[in-house]
């Protein structure tokens, strides 16, 4: 669908809010809390395809609201949105999809977020039907921007120093019906997920959406065996993007290593797995790769594609 930027609100030097309406003013498809849209953002040399969580309510069919952090060593998309996007600009977007839905059986929601990972939680807060507790961890310079977005309530906590959150105590003292939903950079997620696992949290009660962290990396070569093409994957693009630039259209969905749709068989080379989908066994035997996020440890990979 075609969206028009109808509002741009800087919340801090690096955090900016955007309002998006249908280009023709038609009602937008309903987007559940936790959903994201994939925006196609025009860069100087190529199109970026970036996912942003919707922070607006599912009942707002006039505009979607997203919050974008300008990533420091930006791969392009967020930088363009901060530096160039203006009211009236048009962007292509895909129908919202939800890979971070609210767990419906929870008796209580324990929400943990860090940095821009707060965005799906902002949508959650508008619709949660059960009691919840939200703990947000952020950098000091972002505290003002995020505090303004959060309600003042006894169950909403801002931690500007991650050590101020006693994660171990929090996760060790939750009643059986509590579900944990966590979103943030990979380093934050790793600590939370590991702590939860150590304390005996079952996977079915831990819900996560990762907003990456380490994007891009060392360039490498990929041989696409069945297509008889060899491509080079640059430092600032993903393997999937490089495959698409070469003219192929492999199946993909979340573009964040979570959903499994882009799983591709690997014929040679050692992958650098950065996904959340493959099993430990699959990772260990180097038989498959998720090209949307993963890269290479060896200079070359051979894909069965």
């Amino acid at each position, binding site marked *: 669908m075609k969206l028009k930027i109808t509002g741009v609100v800087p919340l801090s030097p690096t955090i900016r809010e955007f309002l998006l309406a249908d280009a023709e003013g038609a009602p937008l498809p309903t987007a559940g809390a936790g959903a994201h849209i994939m925006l196609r953002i025009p860069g100087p040399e190529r199109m970026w395809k970036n996912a942003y969580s919707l922070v607006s309510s599912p009942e707002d069919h006039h505009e979607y609201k997203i919050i974008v952090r300008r990533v420091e060593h930006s791969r392009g998309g967020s930088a363009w949105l901060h530096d160039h996007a203006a009211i009236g600009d048009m962007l292509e977007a895909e129908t919202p999809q939800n890979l971070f839905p609210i767990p419906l059986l929870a008796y209580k929601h324990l929400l943990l977020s860090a940095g821009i990972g707060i965005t799906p939680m902002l949508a959650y807060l508008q619709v949660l039907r059960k009691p919840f507790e939200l703990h947000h961890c952020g950098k000091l310079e972002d505290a003002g921007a995020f505090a303004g977005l959060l309600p003042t309530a006894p169950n909403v906590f801002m931690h500007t120093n991650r050590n101020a959150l006693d994660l171990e105590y929090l996760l060790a003292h939750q*009643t059986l019906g509590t579900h944990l939903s966590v979103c943030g950079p990979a380093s934050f997620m790793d600590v939370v997920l590991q702590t939860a696992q150590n304390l005996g949290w079952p996977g079915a*009660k831990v819900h996560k959406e990762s907003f990456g962290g380490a994007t891009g990396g060392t360039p490498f070569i990929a041989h696409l065996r069945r297509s008889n093409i060899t491509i080079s994957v640059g430092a600032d693009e993903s393997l999937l993007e490089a495959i698409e630039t070469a003219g192929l259209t492999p199946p993909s969905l979340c573009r964040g290593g979570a959903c499994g749709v882009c799983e591709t068989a690997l014929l040679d080379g050692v992958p650098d797995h950065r996904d959340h989908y493959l099993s430990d066994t699959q990772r260990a035997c180097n038989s498959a790769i998720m090209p949307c996020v993963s890269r290479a440890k060896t200079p070359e990979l051979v894909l069965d594609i």
Partner: protein
Amino acid sequence: MIKSRPVYRPFALDVTGRAHLVITDQPQPPEALDLALANISLWTVKTIAPGVPAPAAERCRTFRAVPEMFAFLSHYLSRASIGLRFYAVGSEPFIWDAYNIGTGAGLTAAEMFLAQSGPPCRRVYCCHCKTMIDDVKETIAVCPGCGSSLQVRDHFSRRLAAFMGVKVDAETPGNIPLPELLSS
């Protein structure tokens, strides 16, 4: 055996749990249970003298009957912390009733472990009049609610903790096959 019919593994502790609650409808603990481990509680059912409760104890408790145990279970689970693993060992209706108390308290399948012990003994749900029939040991059961002769199927509902019963002679009334003993 059809996919809805549960298949049970032998009792064993899940080491990823921080605390363990083991309950059984029998007076003795399940085999292979090492009570020396500090974070295990064991509950059994045993009659000491008619109506007389067993002395209160921290980790090993004995109840006068299953209903008393289940009442205590609901209360216990409402205050337990995530990290608990819950085990029920006993007759098939007992372990699934325990399972449903567990899900009511917020436990998921990954946190609960069921092991069936004792002879085959099914609870059957008459899908015509919705009556529950206990202690069924044969392939045909007569429903005390509506009088139908029911074919005892292997299709099992965890929520109802019962097997499906459907009128065996619906198409040709009176034509009822001879019952056989249930093998599981």
